[in-house]
Structure formats: structure tokens, C-alpha cells
């Protein structure tokens, strides 16, 4: 009984509080975000990338596999949503179901081929698959995908016969982001998440204990891809147009940067990284002017060199430093914190 209660409070503290805080921040975004210079719609885009980067972090931060082709899932799903909206119905439910299915199959196929690969070979193979899809979308499938122009002329998406606009799309995306964060948190704290982290730290030893490492890796990859798929689908619902760069490898690079500057291996970090990147790209670039990419590049290099743990690591160091200052000479090592929440 007591154990049960302890577990309950643990679950409440570990899951409900972070999800609640995130939900509060996300849902109130339309009210405070314009105050710091964000245009309406950017908040939706930020939350879409939050979903994308959460999935990416489940792969890189937990399983330890750098995918350099995550745009494949984002872009394929975006094209599937676009094509379903265009040719089947403007309702978003079939479009989203279809794109989740297609992303699942794609992640399964790529995952099956890649479960035995590690390190740089894994990264390059994912890059090769994503680049192949990009090139194929521009050449072989250009009759369906609209080639270089992207997929245009989509009807405005509807849900139960209602047209989706501004706030409704934001609410939909926020809902997905909150549920996505909650699921990611559950995964991080589940036995499955533990397996993924075990793969990251030493997969050979894990294999010696008789566990089918490939299977966990495959599922980690698929779950990660599905997050990308949901994000890609929402992107087209937010803005009914499929740009070719959704599939381009610069998109994969962007999500890598978001995760790294935020702090790989934590869930909060990459989300902050995504928000920071999008904010920087769209708002701060206006103050800095044309050179904003240069500033971003320098910032990225500085973070990688001096703050390998990203913003989350920075916050932890700052906290340790303040505590150190307060407690005077009483040198105290920063407590090991569970950062997976």
C-alpha cells in the first residue's frame, strides 16, 4: 500500500508536473508570445518543431544513434498529408492517419536495413536514404509531388466539416505536442526507455544478457520516426503547402542543431532548443539583420565547444554555481539530478 502510494506520488511529481507546466506554457503561448515579438503562427510552428525534435531526441539522446536523415519522415509525411488532402478529402483525419501509416512503413523499412549499423555508418545511411527520397521527389515522382515547386493548390484543411484556421490549428498542434511530450516522458521512464539508454551506454553487454538489441533499436527508430511524421503532417495542416525543403537534408541538420544546443538526452533541452532556433530564425534575425546566420553559426560552435550539454547543462552549471556562492566555501558537488524529466 505504501509502495503503491509512493509510486503514485512519484508518477505525479515525475510526469504530471512537467506535462502540466509544459501544457500551461504551450496553451498560453498565443497570449504572451506576441509580446516578445513573435508573429501569430510562429507559436504553432515552434510547437510543430517541438514534436519533431522530441522524436529526434528519443533516438539521439536515449538510444545514442545520430540520424542525419530525419527529414525523410518529416517530408514524406508532409507529402502524404498534402496528397491525401488534395486527392481524397480535405478532412485532416484520413490525411493524418495515412501519413502516420506511411511514416511507420518507411521507418520500419529503413530501420530493418539499419539496425546492425552503428556510428558514422548509421548517420550516413540515414542521410543517403533521406537524400534519395528528396531527389526522387524532385525527379521520379515529380508528377505527383509537383517537383521543384512543391505541392501547391491544397484545399484548406477541415476537421468535422469545420475549416481550420489560426487558433484552431494552434490548439490541435498544442494538443499533439502535449500528448507527444507526455508519451516521450512515459517512454523515458519506462522499461523500454531504460533499454534504449542501455543500448546507448553499452549495447554489446546488453546483447550478452540475452536481449534482442535490434528489436529495441528498431522500435526506438520507428517511434522516433513517427514523431517526425506527426510533425510533418501538422506542418502541412498549419500551412497547406508542401515545400521541397521539408525533405532536404538541411531540415535534418536543423533538427540536429536544435537538439544539440538544447541539450541532447534530456527532453526539456531539445524543446527549448527548438523554440530558441525558431525564435532566432524568425524574430531575432530581424534585429540582427542579414548576418544572423553567422551569429547562429558562432553560437552553435561556442555551445558545442564550451557547453556540450546545451542549455540544460548551462542551467545546471549556473544553479550549481549559485548554490556554491550561497554556501560560501562549503564546496559541494552538484547533486546528480535525473534529467530525463
Amino acid at each position: 500500500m505504501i509502495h503503491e502510494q509512493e509510486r503514485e506520488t512519484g508518477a505525479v511529481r515525475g510526469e504530471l508536473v512537467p506535462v502540466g507546466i509544459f501544457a500551461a506554457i504551450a496553451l498560453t503561448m498565443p497570449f504572451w508570445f506576441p509580446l516578445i515579438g513573435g508573429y501569430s503562427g510562429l507559436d504553432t510552428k515552434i510547437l510543430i518543431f517541438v514534436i519533431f525534435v522530441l522524436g529526434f531526441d528519443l533516438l539521439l539522446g536515449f538510444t545514442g544513434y545520430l540520424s542525419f536523415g530525419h527529414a525523410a519522415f518529416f517530408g514524406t509525411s508532409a507529402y502524404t498529408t498534402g496528397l491525401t488532402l488534395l486527392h481524397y478529402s480535405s478532412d485532416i483525419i484520413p490525411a493524418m492517419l495515412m501519413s502516420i501509416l506511411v511514416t511507420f512503413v518507411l521507418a520500419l523499412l529503413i530501420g530493418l536495413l539499419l539496425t546492425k549499423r552503428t556510428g558514422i555508418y548509421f548517420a550516413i545511411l540515414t542521410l543517403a536514404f533521406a537524400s534519395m527520397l528528396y531527389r526522387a521527389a524532385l525527379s521520379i515522382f515529380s508528377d505527383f509531388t509537383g517537383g521543384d515547386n512543391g505541392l501547391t493548390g491544397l484545399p484548406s484543411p477541415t476537421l468535422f466539416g469545420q475549416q481550420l484556421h489560426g487558433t484552431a490549428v494552434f490548439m490541435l498542434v498544442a494538443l499533439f505536442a502535449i500528448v507527444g511530450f507526455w508519451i516521450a516522458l512515459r517512454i523515458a521512464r519506462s522499461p523500454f526507455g531504460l533499454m534504449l539508454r542501455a543500448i546507448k551506454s553499452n549495447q554489446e553487454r546488453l546483447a550478452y544478457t540475452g536481449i534482442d538489441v535490434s528489436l529495441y533499436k528498431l522500435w526506438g527508430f520507428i517511434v522516433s520516426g513517427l514523431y517526425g511524421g506527426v510533425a510533418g503532417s501538422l506542418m502541412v495542416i498549419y500551412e497547406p503547402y508542401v515545400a521541397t525543403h521539408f525533405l532536404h537534408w538541411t531540415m535534418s541538420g536543423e533538427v540536429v542543431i536544435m537538439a544539440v544546443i538544447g541539450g541532447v538526452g534530456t527532453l526539456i533541452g531539445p524543446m527549448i532548443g527548438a523554440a530558441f532556433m525558431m525564435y532566432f530564425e524568425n524574430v531575432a534575425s530581424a534585429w540582427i539583420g542579414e548576418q544572423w546566420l553567422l551569429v547562429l553559426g558562432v553560437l552553435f560552435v561556442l555551445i558545442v565547444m564550451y557547453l556540450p550539454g546545451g542549455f540544460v547543462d548551462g542551467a545546471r552549471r549556473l544553479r550549481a554555481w549559485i548554490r556554491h556562492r550561497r554556501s560560501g566555501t562549503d564546496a559541494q558537488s552538484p547533486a546528480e539530478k535525473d534529467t530525463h524529466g
Partner: protein
Amino acid sequence: MLHEYLPFLEGFVVYPMWRLILVIVSLVTVLALFGLLQFTRFGLVVRAGMRDAEMLRFLGINIERRFAIVFGLGAGIAGIAGLFGGPVTQVYPGIGMAYLVPSFLVVVIGGMGSVPGAVIASLLLGMALAFSAEYSNIQQIIIYLIAVVVLLVRPRGLLGKKGVLE
């Protein structure tokens, strides 16, 4: 091409001088790099550092400095490629991006840590691109297709060494 305007050249092969220079420069660069890495003390240390950098540090060798030099060399060779390759392609600010992914693929198809592998892989990809020029759809994806097929059959690339960046 030239024969149409200068019929007396029929029978001779017309080949731009610059491309011949390019062939020679690339041959010399590759041989020099291979020689440096394979036959000098510096190359030996760098190759050992690839296998086990920690061990070299224990032996009192400043491997970081040598890696920095190798990084510089790599950048310099890319510079040579830009210098001699520029006149035969278009030059534009994003030109590096266009070559970035294919050069990743060359290294990985050839196998990490192998200069001959990289040469074979670049010949393979270059030939594939040239011979598929007739079918533009296939030309777009051929290098990625080759990369996928090669890496699935030979996980470390054509001549990759065990334990390098895995």
C-alpha cells in the same frame, strides 16, 4: 564539338588542357597523401591515433596536434579541389553544399580510414554519374542508391578498417 567548325581536326581527339592538368593534379595529390599517411612516421602516428587515441596519449604523443594538422591538410586538399575544379563547374556561394553530401558518401562507401577506398569510391560514383547522364531521373538518385547497396552488402564500405568511427 570542335570538329564541326574545324573539319581538319577530324581524327584528332580534342581535350581541354585544363582537364588534363586536373587529372595530373588529382593524381599527384592522392599519391602524395597516400605516401604521407602510409610511409612516413607522421602517417604512422596518425593511423595509430585513429585506432586508439588513448593509447597514444599514454605513450606521450601529442595526438591532438597531429589531428589538427590532418584537419588542416584535409581543408587544404578541399581547397586544391576548389581551385582546380572551379573552372570546370559553376562557382556560386553555396557550391560547397552541393559537394558536401557526395563527399561524405565517397568516404563512407570507400570505407573510413582508407585512402585507396576513397579513390575507388569516388571513381565509382563519378562513373555512375557520368554514365547515367542519359537518364536524368536515375542520375538524381544513383549515388545514394550505390551508397545504400554498398553499405548494406559491406557494412564498413569497400576497404573500411575495423573500429574506425563506428
